[in-house]
């Protein structure tokens, strides 16, 4: 096997871990404020944990990317990041469609109720 040469410097490793930890605290802060549903937060907490793992054990990721046939580990990272982002965006569109339906129903019901009340006057 070709010699793997990790290029993550200790400085960058610390930076990545700090960012990940800050993200986790911010997410927990938002949940406690009641501004983020736990359901939606799990994904972001998972992302932060994965980031910590990758920063701590870069060799592990280098190995996997090589096994999958990527010439450079960075390509694997970009590839998986983009796929992951697309999945998130798609899920957001699903949520938007769902919300749109709910808003439509609410608007219709409200309009009909208002008409009914006005007719009774």
């Amino acid at each position, binding site marked *: 096997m070709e010699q793997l040469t990790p290029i993550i410097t200790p400085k960058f490793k610390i930076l990545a871990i700090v960012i990940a930890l800050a993200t986790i605290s911010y997410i927990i802060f938002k949940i406690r404020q009641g501004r983020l549903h736990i359901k939606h937060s799990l994904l972001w907490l998972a992302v932060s944990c994965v980031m910590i793992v990758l920063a701590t054990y870069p060799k592990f990721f280098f190995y996997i990317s090589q096994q999958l046939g990527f010439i450079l580990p960075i390509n694997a990272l970009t590839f998986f990041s983009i796929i992951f982002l697309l999945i998130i965006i798609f899920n957001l569109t699903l949520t938007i469609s769902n919300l749109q339906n709910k*808003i*439509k129903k609410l*608007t*219709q019901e*409200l*309009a*009909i109720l*208002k*008409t009914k009340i006005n*007719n009774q006057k």
Partner: protein
Amino acid sequence: MKILIIVPAYNEEASIEYVIKQIKNQKIENCQIDIAVINDCSQDKTSEIAKAHNVIVIDLINNLGIGGAVQTGYIYAFENNYDIAVQIDGDGQHNPEYLKSLLDPIISNNCDIAIGSRFINKNNPAYRSSFLRRIGIKILANVLSLLTSQKITDATSGFRAANKKVIRLFAENYPDDYPEPETFVILYKNNLKILEVSVKMNERYGGKSSINAIDSIYYMIKVLIAIFIDFFKGK
């Protein structure tokens, strides 16, 4: 018989009065006719003008687009137990003189929904919309004819009369934007009988159409995809 005329209107202050007056001029024997203007969050005086003419006005607090607005009318018709619901656009394109021609086949139980068509009678000289739009309508009509194994000539007509079965279906399930072509597939899937009736349509009485050139391309693609998805998804 209780009949509800559903008039979806978005910024139609120029034409809504004319449309309401025209509808009120129509008399159908043994029928109580109510008019419900669905004001789709207009920014102009549509709602006030309609209220001044003593008709039911349903004000939507969000702009839902034509599909959501028309559906509100069907929900209202369903909840208030109307026997027939008729859609007439608030822009004056649909001539209420044809109300009787649309209602007759429903009252005599010849079909579940009667749809006003500009093209079924080849000698119909009145407004038939622009050349490109006609091609679009022709393509949609052919696709729909094929899918529903029935001759459909005017795929985009929103001038229609529906019986109770259709009212219940549309109150529950009505497409969002550009709904007319899709409804043919939904009706067909629910084994409801569609009948096209020859009508003449006018150019818009006032105001501006909500569909422009770029929108029409989007319109065709969106509608065709929607039609095929509806066709293959079952009931």
